[in-house]
């Protein structure tokens, strides 16, 4: 806590070294958050950049009422949602099945319980589903809050989440099936 206090105070003084320390400490985790919401890696970097600039500019508003990481994460999520809202006009909604061919084949890889694998599954969800799924299943918002955040109906949030879950299940089943039918080759000597 003391460490966080020093970080925040240093950032308030606009001490570039401390700002860098804050970045080094949290950028990795926050980058994963960005990537959960934004599929394009370059855009995810842009969102992370915007979020950190916002964090440094508004660090004064952080009053240690919650863990620093949680506050930072909220800033990132809000920045990502804002970015998504801007992108909406041209962002295509593609179904996960359309993207299935781009996924690695079972004989090439194995669906491990690796966040990177799960991240890819989430990123391949249609944008609307993806946002709702992230907010509900990972961030812990309820549907009323999501509806308020995204300016959609509560029912829409529920249906989008159900759809996301269904699509993810389909993909997981497919991966499991290919895994069991094509077990990885191993050799012993």
């Amino acid at each position, binding site marked *: 806590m003391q460490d966080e206090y020093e970080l925040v105070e240093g950032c308030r003084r606009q001490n570039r070294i401390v*700002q860098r320390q804050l970045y080094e400490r949290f950028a990795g*985790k926050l980058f994963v958050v960005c990537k959960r919401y934004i599929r394009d890696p370059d855009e995810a970097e842009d969102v992370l950049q915007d979020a950190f600039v916002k964090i440094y500019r508004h660090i004064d508003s952080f009053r240690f009422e919650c863990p620093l990481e949680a*506050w930072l994460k909220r800033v990132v999520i809000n920045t990502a949602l804002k970015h998504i809202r801007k992108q909406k006009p041209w962002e295509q909604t593609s179904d996960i099945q359309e993207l299935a061919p781009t996924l690695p084949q079972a004989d*090439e890889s*194995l669906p491990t319980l690796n966040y*990177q694998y799960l991240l890819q599954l989430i990123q391949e969800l249609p944008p609307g589903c993806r946002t709702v799924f992230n907010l509900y*299943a990972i961030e812990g918002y309820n549907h009323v809050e999501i509806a308020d955040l995204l300016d959609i109906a509560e029912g829409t949030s529920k249906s989008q989440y159900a759809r996301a879950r269904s699509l993810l299940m389909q993909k997981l*089943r497919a991966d499991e099936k290919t895994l069991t039918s094509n077990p990885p080759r191993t050799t012993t000597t």
Partner: protein
Amino acid sequence: MNELENIPDDFWRKAFDGADERPPKGVWDAIEQQLDDDSKARVLPLWGSASLPVHRALIWGTGVAASAALLLAGWWSVQPANRSQSATSVAVHTSTGPAAATAPTIPSASHRQNSLTLLADAARSSQAGETRYRQQPPLAEQPDVAMAMSAHSAISGALARHYAAFSAEVAPSAQSVAVQQATPYARQAFSQSISLSITSVTTIPEQSVSTQSGSIPTDEPVTGTVVAQQAKNQPVLAAETSVEATTDATTKPIRREKWASLSVMPGAFNPAVALAMAPAATVNNAVYAGNVYQNAATPTVDSRSSRSVAYQLSAGVQLTDRWSVETGVGYLSAQSTVDSPTQVNPVSLAMLTTNDAPATNNLFIDAIRSRTAGSANAYVAADRNTVQSYATGRYSSSDRQSVSNDYQFVQVPVQVGYQLRPRKRLGLALIGGFLTNIFVRNTVASQVVVTPSDDIYRSLSWAASLGARFRYRPSQHWSASLAGLYQPTIGNSTTSDSPIRSHPTSAGMSFGVDYHF
């Protein structure tokens, strides 16, 4: 299969707890640059932080003022040339006219493929040695892990089956598993895979954490639930859960956006034509009847602007958030009209009216003919009498003819842009630079074709290009632009010994479509 239906609600959250992937170095560089820009902004209070409406107004006002200043500077730099022209014996009244004016991409396929291929390679390897894998007990022998795997989810099950099979084959001869020969990356990927698998199913019971939230620096109101939920559900992670994806943590250069653009610019073009030297004398009709050649006056030609259209294919690159550079190639087709004193034929002067006079017998066209008489221009060569007329200088300054000019240029612009509204959907940029005009031809009165070989117009001439451009970008890759441009030629576009002087100026509105890569 049924296990899939029973994935617990917190499965996804736990899977991402502690996930850590270092962003490329370029991200910090960009952040630092923005922070530096903020610092500079404080030096100039007028600029403000753009967070308040009054600041935005100031930014816009300053932008408009800067545009006006640029335009005035361009105009001012052109004016002396005009004055020096009029200082010669030939006065030119130019009518300006109405200027119409590696990132660590998702580790996905390649990452996992590498990881698993290397894992399999490690398993196949028969070399003994100390490995990180050997330091871990075989997964099948860990009851907690095995139980969790079977109960937690289908993925866990799949993973457990895989690792069980893997362990069955490898564990009996653990010493034979040699990852030492694998690359460091292989060892890391392997241990990472194992570590994640374990930690994702061995979370520690929930902690009780304060759920108060801090204020949020964002434009949108957000409830504090995320903090509450996150704090409530936050598992304590073992150190090994923090897996740093090192797939592409190397320095990534700042992304420079590039674009290609196709535009058309209708506008006005004024060649500002004047005579370089006056013929010997001019006839004034009013005086001629009584006193031939006594009241000789300096003949002048005037040019009027007319329509032009320029087509341009260009490409640009965004150097920084605000600065960009662009170049391309274009084609300019421009018309203008030159008012010129009519040629006087003493024999028949009394009977001539302006309408009777041959359409191409006037001072301007004769000046051109005088230059091209010796050339291969068939029309000019066939009408050498006019050359004689120009030499003897018999023109009526009160009877004037209009001569059409049809210019064609190939243009190569090199421009720098400064974004006043960077990263906005509706952008505004000031643009300035140079334009290389490659003279192709000028068709005078639809009869005389002047080409670079006639040595009247310079093959190459340069013009300044100043203006402002709005760019509306409704999609990630496409945008439309609307630009107002003012392009005065720098110096003369005619050769030093040409009988005419020309200092073209064009202005117009450019409409373009851009594709951003």
